[in-house]
């Protein structure tokens, strides 16, 4: 068969969102690849310039539908950096607990999509079932299932509801049990291992050069976690280890995320236990100063960054958002070339695409 280009997207079960992967195949082997994004470009950076600082928070929620909490948190972090606001300690702990919950929910969402991609429908169903527990907790806290609008500039919107911490601890215990079950379900499956091991190898040098961050970077053997190495919020006071793996393939990415889920449960327990009493919010000024602010967090998908320029009014002058997946997906050809068409789903699924933040 001669070489031919195949368009996978914008509507394709592999994409989990709106993007287009053009692959050139020789028979079943990929010889060239070219991702194409932008189908969900909403101009969020322009919209933010015409909103006040507070009004941007709901918009930043809609940046990434997989983990909206971490993006609104990142935005609040950036504005606090610009304004020089000190956040009450209780708010920081609440934020950490909630962020880790969001991370678990996001990784479960990823696992569901990944399992469905590989054909194991049962993985999709079980992970979606357990994701509901975390969604319920977040819903009890914020009243919404996906876009929470919970962090505020200078704290969080409101205090924890009654018995929420008890439920969160119970959910952690439940999750520990379920993680073992997933391990049996996936690691114990010969076919799953066949599909993952040795597929989509991304060398350490390539990963560094191409700007890959987050779990794919840590799966390539770089032990770098912003929560540990450039700590923000109260992460320095919490005992945890960044999860990494040296196999560099799809299985390593899967394993890193599984370990991160267990680690997140660990962090939630600590955050809830260490949470002090007190205020959960300070009132932020309406107008920001002239200057720049920089926020940097470890999103579930990688390094999320925001660069904010204030001009003294109540609106951001310029808000630049660094999306981890936008950079990571540009490294896709490096991983795809030389593998089979069927490996596209494993490799691209292993990156955890979230088009909302990619296209902005």
């Amino acid at each position: 068969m001669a070489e031919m280009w195949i368009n996978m997207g914008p509507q394709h079960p592999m994409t989990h969102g709106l993007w287009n992967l053009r692959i050139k195949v020789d028979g079943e082997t990929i010889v060239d690849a070219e991702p194409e994004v932008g189908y969900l470009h909403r101009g969020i950076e322009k919209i933010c310039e015409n909103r006040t600082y507070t009004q941007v928070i709901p918009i930043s929620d809609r940046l990434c539908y997989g983990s909206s909490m971490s993006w609104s948190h990142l935005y609040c972090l950036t504005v606090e950096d610009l304004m020089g606001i000190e956040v009450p300690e209780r708010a920081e702990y609440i934020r950490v607990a909630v962020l880790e919950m969001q991370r678990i929910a996001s990784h479960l969402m990823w696992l569901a999509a990944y399992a469905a991609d590989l054909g194991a429908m049962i993985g999709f169903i079980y992970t979606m079932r357990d994701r509901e527990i975390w969604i319920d907790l977040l819903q009890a806290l914020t009243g919404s299932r996906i876009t929470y609008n919970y962090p505020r500039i200078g704290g969080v919107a409101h205090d924890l509801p009654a018995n929420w911490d008890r439920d969160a601890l119970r959910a952690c215990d439940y999750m520990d049990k379920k993680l073992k079950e997933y391990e049996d379900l996936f690691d114990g499956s010969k076919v799953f291992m066949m599909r993952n091991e040795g597929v989509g190898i991304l060398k350490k040098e390539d990963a560094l050069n191409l700007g890959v961050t987050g779990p794919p970077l840590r799966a390539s053997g770089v032990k770098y976690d912003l929560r540990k190495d450039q700590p923000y919020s109260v992460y320095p006071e919490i005992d945890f280890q960044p999860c990494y793996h040296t196999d560099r393939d799809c299985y390593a990415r899967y394993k890193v995320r599984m370990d991160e889920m267990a680690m997140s449960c660990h962090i939630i327990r600590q955050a809830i236990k260490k949470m002090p009493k007190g205020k959960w919010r300070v009132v932020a000024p309406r107008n920001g100063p002239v200057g720049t602010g920089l926020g940097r967090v470890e999103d579930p998908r990688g390094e999320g960054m925001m660069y904010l320029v204030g001009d003294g009014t109540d609106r951001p002058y310029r808000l630049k958002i660094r999306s981890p997946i936008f950079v990571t997906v540009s490294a896709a050809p490096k991983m795809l070339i030389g593998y089979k068409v069927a490996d596209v789903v494993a490799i691209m699924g292993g990156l955890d695409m979230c088009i909302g933040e990619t296209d902005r």
Partner: protein
Amino acid sequence: MVARQKRTMTGEIEEAPRRVDGQPEESVIRHLLDMFPSTLTDFKKVRDGLLRAKIERRDLYKACKTLRDILGFEHLSMISAVEYDDRFEIVYHITSYSKGLLVELITTTPKDDPSVDSISSIWGGANWQERESFDLMGIKFNGHPKLERILLPKDYVYFPLRKDFKGGG
């Protein structure tokens, strides 16, 4: 980030082991100032782990090459283009994993000639970010392998993030 600085100074936080020399910022500053004495200005340590410097655009490529090859900054985090009344600023956030540092390099271009050298041959991760800056802000990156629109349709004619574009938001 007042709060965070205070906490790191008073709390019983262990410093990351790779930061034992205490002054990785100083060595970076010294090295860069030695290399580019005239074009590198306004060097400033904003807070622990964050440096800021301005560099003229003719030395940008060389400075980036120095940062990666000699000083060990492996990762280009972000390229942001900001439009001011009289100039464009292109801000490069460059990370060193081994030193735990973040350098903010700011390059200025005049309004009528928004172009800088492309650094996508140094960091492959810069490729798409430069395309994005070209797409939304209209900055031209000289020597970029494929400088065309990425987020917007190919036949779009405006640069929407410029301030004179009133098209929405």
